[in-house]
């Protein structure tokens, strides 16, 4: 191969390695991670919001056609919420705007993410997976208030 060609392939490899290191640091150093494999929890039957400590909450959500039916989530700024999500029927999405919570609700399984809400405000929840005729209306909200 041409020398320039070898240089380009080498540079391309270096760039991809740098990208990989960057996202690895993001995951390990900054704790921004994707959902994994949850096997210790079976799909639950009820939507619930528990308070587990000072500014600590656990939220169980069952996404259903075509609404989120969990109790109103109104929490103080600075809260940390452990979200467990499943689906009661078809596949749904669960994206909390302005956060890194971006989950799929898949029937038969449970998924998990930890959400932090340092700032007060209204955080819309969007169903971003097509789930039937009413999909576009499937939205929710997390209200974060001044403590």
């Amino acid at each position, binding site marked *: 191969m041409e020398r320039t060609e070898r240089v380009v392939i080498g540079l391309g490899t270096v760039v991809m390695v740098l990208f990989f290191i960057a996202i690895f640091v993001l*995951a390990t150093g900054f704790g921004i991670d*994707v959902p*994994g494999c949850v096997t210790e929890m079976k799909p639950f039957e009820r939507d619930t919001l528990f308070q587990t400590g000072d500014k600590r909450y656990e939220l169980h959500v069952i996404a259903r056609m*075509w609404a989120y039916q969990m109790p109103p989530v109104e929490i103080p700024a600075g809260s940390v919420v452990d979200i467990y999500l499943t689906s009661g029927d078809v596949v749904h999405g669960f994206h909390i705007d302005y956060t890194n919570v971006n989950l799929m609700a*898949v029937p*038969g399984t449970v998924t998990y993410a930890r959400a932090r809400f340092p700032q007060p405000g209204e955080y819309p929840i*969007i169903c971003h*997976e097509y789930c039937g005729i009413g*999909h*576009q209306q499937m939205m929710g909200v997390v209200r974060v208030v001044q403590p």
Partner: protein
Amino acid sequence: MELTRSYRHLILTELIVPIVLLTIGIYGGLMQVLFRAGVLHYDPLLRLLISTLGNLFGVEALKNIDWQSSIMYYWGLTLHGVINAIVLTTFFAVAFGNAVVPYFLRLPLNTRIGWLSAILMLIGVLLAAFAMFTGQASVLYTFYPPLKAHPTFYLGAALLIIGSWVGAANWIPLYRRWRREHPGEKIPLAVMGMFATFIIWFIATLSVAVEVLFLLLPWSLGWTETVDVPLARALFWFFGHPLVYFWLLPAYVMYYTMLPKVAGGKLFSDAAGRLVFVMFILFSIPVGAHHQFADPGIGTQWKWVHTFLTYAVALPSLITAFTVAASLEYAGRQRGARGLFGWMVRLPYFDRERWLFSYWIAGLIIFIFGGISGIVNASYNLNLAVHNTSWIPGHFHLTVGSPVLLAVLGMSLFLVSQLSGKGVRLKSLVVAMPYLWLVGVLIFSFGMMRGGLQGMPRRTYLGAGALNPDMQGTVFFRADWAPYAEIAMVGGIIMFIAALLYFVAFFSTLFARRTQEATVEFPVAEVYHDEPVRALNRLAPWVVAAVVLIIVSYTPVLYDVVRSSFKPAPAYVPEYNVPEKQLQETSRQEQPLGQ
């Protein structure tokens, strides 16, 4: 090489059928941007057409369609996705291979098997079209269970895939004969590219064939009650990423073996092309979990493995960017360019006699943005910012929706003109089209991607949801998305006009009078650097390596998916929020006894 009538008609059929269908698919795209922006709430043209037909033939069902229903958006979106991304691309890949393989090997194709393949694919398309057009398969082109489609949808998809297998299997005897007759020679690069395309396609579609034939079809027919959704999703995405390379590689074959010739230069490096095709065979499949970063049931360590391999499959595209640019630079210098960047302006962008160039170069310029945004999607935790937002369709209209589409459209017109012996008509329109598309798609994708970063979802009828004026004043009304949906609409309208130009030119050519001998004569690029790399001559060892890599990367994924799945799901149809079975029982109860 003499072209038989059967051979000409085979390829013409495989090219013209999807282009005719594409008119519907593209029209669907226009409707989606209008619906999303909230400009239209029903399709007035379609309503006029269908209700006129209903009145003419006295069909009550056609008169009583609820045009305002939200399902119409998803009905159109399903047609848009299936026709544009599955039907067009599969038919084209087979048709292109049917032209390329015999041409470069100088051996005649067995047209009987060719027709068997075409007929299987046609029956498949008719079956799936029946389900989609009658509104019994509004499940989008990913058809995620437990939303259920009519059985003919799944059967049609299976037949389309099997037909494409038969089409590609038909090239194997030619390959073997050529090898026997040319011992020790390198197989032509274009032929190697087409084989790479279909090796990837075959391995990938095995998985979706298992999903369709063993999980979805029996379930849709009512033979099984429930379906394991996480397993179906993993099987789908095993197929879903290599699908992308199945779309892309025929375009790569053109970029490597034909583009340099049309540009007036030579292919910079033959070995680079071979290396790229081999790398795609190796890395395009064991990366599917990067479409499932947000999915439950797959351990993060396996998601890391798939991320790593995805970065590996980015390399062949980086190499291609270099080789294609180097080939074009050589072409520009041959045409008298000076200085470091002079070659860029010396290329035949608007040359009506080299009109194919415009389809390739416009696609390549757009692909720069498509490739970069693709790396964002594949970057593990960065995906959390974009997953299932409109960033994603913004991205893939810059890949499959531009470089692939433009290569397919250009080559279809080129081959139809040659095979039917009719000169290309309206060349000014033909040359202008790709650049108009470029303008449109860049505007469209900017709106979609920027809105996506703001959380605007994909596959959502926003005009009846977050952008519905009735919602104003609530937290659910998203004024911040409105400008981006509108920018995407403007881009979409420009894309639609560009496509119209193409259709006018295509059908004018098709219905013109025959002016020349029917032929297939590809522009074949000479090679600038040609060196033998023995390791890249045979595909078999690389296929074995790919299979090993797939087993290593996918076994743990499937293991996780199965062990995290507690309960299979019954079937749902998109219109109701209770299982289909329950729905049938209630409707039985509601019927008065004795009727």
